[in-house]
């Protein structure tokens, strides 16, 4: 058997990479900030009494732009990666991905309904708008996950091929509905909508961050408690039942966590594909499929990878900025094809 990396080594490496990504994400941009400024401004933002001279600009850039953006990137990446692990466990297939089974497009549809419908209705309190968006994205994601899962069931077994095909159909359906909303939208809403569909961490604000951080925290605390049950589920649903696992309850939790996580991530940063597929795969290649390692490692790796992707999006065509969904798809789609080819051998 191929030698696996010890979990301790893996976590040390991932933590180091994660810190590196956070540092670069805070430091790089139109104005580069030296590490000392970042640390001093960061301490000031935490309320430490540090001399402000020469720090005004750094504090403004960090506090208003780069810190929320970095936190958003970490949370979105982590939640998408965890949702990927949950989906792959639920469908007992390493190629399941929140984007492939239509969850993300369901969430995007929910977001479109909230954006366009909200603009139509008007009179929605300013403070409530981000939450309405998260709520609708969540309901959209949950609805599609439940539907795809139901369609993929045959005689008590989950038929993965049917499920993937149902996911494609739901993605197309969601896409056409989003298209309809795009057609109906006025100029301002159109801009917002287009931005969702490509995905971006641009314009991160604390209002958009809160619901996502809460969800990320919840999913992060909840899923690892089910690590052993997920391991057993990979044997098969009836095998897991014979090992004393409450399989129906577990599946409900996984669907709920995925819908919640993807819904919140899509609401906060739009459609960012392939993180949920690529990250768990990379971790499994390195450390094996045990969910007790896979879940926390995917959490770290997801946040890290998304920050690096965001750096590419920000710096590749500077001063212009690529939507991050384009970057992740550009890396993720060939990786997916590579996995398909490798599996065939």
């Amino acid at each position, binding site marked *: 058997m191929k030698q696996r990396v010890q979990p301790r080594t893996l976590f040390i490496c991932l933590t180091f990479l994660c810190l590196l990504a956070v540092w670069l994400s805070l430091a790089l941009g139109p104005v580069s900030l030296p590490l000392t400024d970042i640390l001093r401004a960061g301490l000031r933002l935490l309320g430490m009494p540090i001399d402000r001279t020469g720090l005004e600009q750094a504090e403004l850039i960090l506090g208003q732009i780069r810190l929320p953006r970095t936190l958003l990137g970490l949370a979105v990446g982590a939640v998408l990666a965890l949702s990927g692990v949950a989906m792959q466990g639920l469908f007992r297939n390493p190629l399941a991905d929140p984007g492939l089974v239509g969850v993300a497009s369901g969430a995007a549809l929910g977001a479109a309904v909230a954006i366009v419908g909200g603009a139509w209705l008007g009179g929605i309190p300013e403070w409530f708008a981000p939450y309405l968006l998260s709520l609708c994205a969540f309901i959209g994601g949950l609805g599609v996950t439940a539907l795809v899962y139901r369609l993929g069931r045959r005689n008590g077994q989950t038929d993965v091929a049917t499920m993937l095909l149902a996911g494609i159909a739901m993605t197309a359906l969601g896409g056409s509905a989003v298209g309809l909303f795009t057609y109906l939208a006025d100029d301002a809403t159109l801009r917002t909508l287009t931005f969702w569909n490509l995905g971006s961490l641009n314009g991160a604000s604390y209002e958009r961050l809160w619901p996502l951080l809460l969800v990320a925290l919840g999913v992060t605390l909840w899923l690892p408690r089910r690590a052993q049950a997920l391991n057993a589920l990979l044997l098969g649903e009836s095998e897991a039942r014979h090992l*004393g696992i409450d399989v129906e309850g577990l599946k409900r939790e996984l669907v709920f966590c995925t819908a919640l996580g993807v819904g919140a991530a899509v609401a906060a940063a739009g459609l960012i594909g392939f993180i949920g597929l690529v990250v768990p795969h990379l971790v499994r290649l390195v450390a094996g499929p045990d969910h007790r390692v896979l879940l926390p490692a995917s959490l770290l790796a997801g946040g890290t990878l998304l920050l690096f992707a965001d750096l590419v999006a920000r710096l590749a065509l500077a001063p212009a900025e690529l939507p991050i969904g384009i970057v992740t798809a550009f890396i993720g789609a060939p990786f997916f094809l590579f996995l398909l080819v490798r599996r065939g051998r």
Partner: protein
Amino acid sequence: MLEVKGLSLKRGSTEVLHGIDLHLRPGQVLGVLGPNGAGKSSLLGALCGELAPSQGHVLLQGRALAHWPGQERARRLAVLPQVSSLGFAFSVEEVVGLGRLPHGSGQQRDREIVEAALKAADAWHLVERSYLALSGGERQRVHLARVLAQLWPGEEGATLLLDEPTSALDPLHQHTTLQAVRSFADRGAAVLVILHDLNLAARYCDAILLLEQGRSHALDTPARVLTPQALKAVFGIDVLVQAHPERGHPLIITR
């Protein structure tokens, strides 16, 4: 210990099992034989609670299956399905270790039990391998080790249900597997095993249930069940039955 009374089972509108009674006692290996479609796997499904009977009931240690909390039941009842579809690169040790999930007996003890179960299934040499790199027969033995580990050491009160555990095995491992099952029962476990090979059943089982179109054709010792008349009636084959020259159990020879 498993008690079945008046069990009937429907799949769709067809009745696949009708009026089955049986009593699986500690220390006993009960073989289930019958042609394809006789209801063997349906019976196993009903015995482990996967399929709900339309009539009758199944009692595990005097208590209805559905009334057992999942984990407590898993400590007493283990099931080996015909095929398993594990598509992830767990090591053999991890797969067998999953059998210890219902117990919480600690890492050290679990590791000893995994080793003992793998040795019993003659798969200890595979312990470091990736499950995905194994052949069909090796996988079958690893899953056998997993269910043995789940009930280890197989004392009285443990019930093991096996669906064709020898279907992918070479002749040697057909015997080592059933020998492992036999010694499990000798320590007090109750075992029900679906088999296709009449001679293996005759050698290792204490009792045999012969199923025919969902009904019990006979339930008795191998010598009483495996008669030319019964095998002709149920399987439609002509056989000679003689005593094994060394061991004395029935030996079935097709004509």
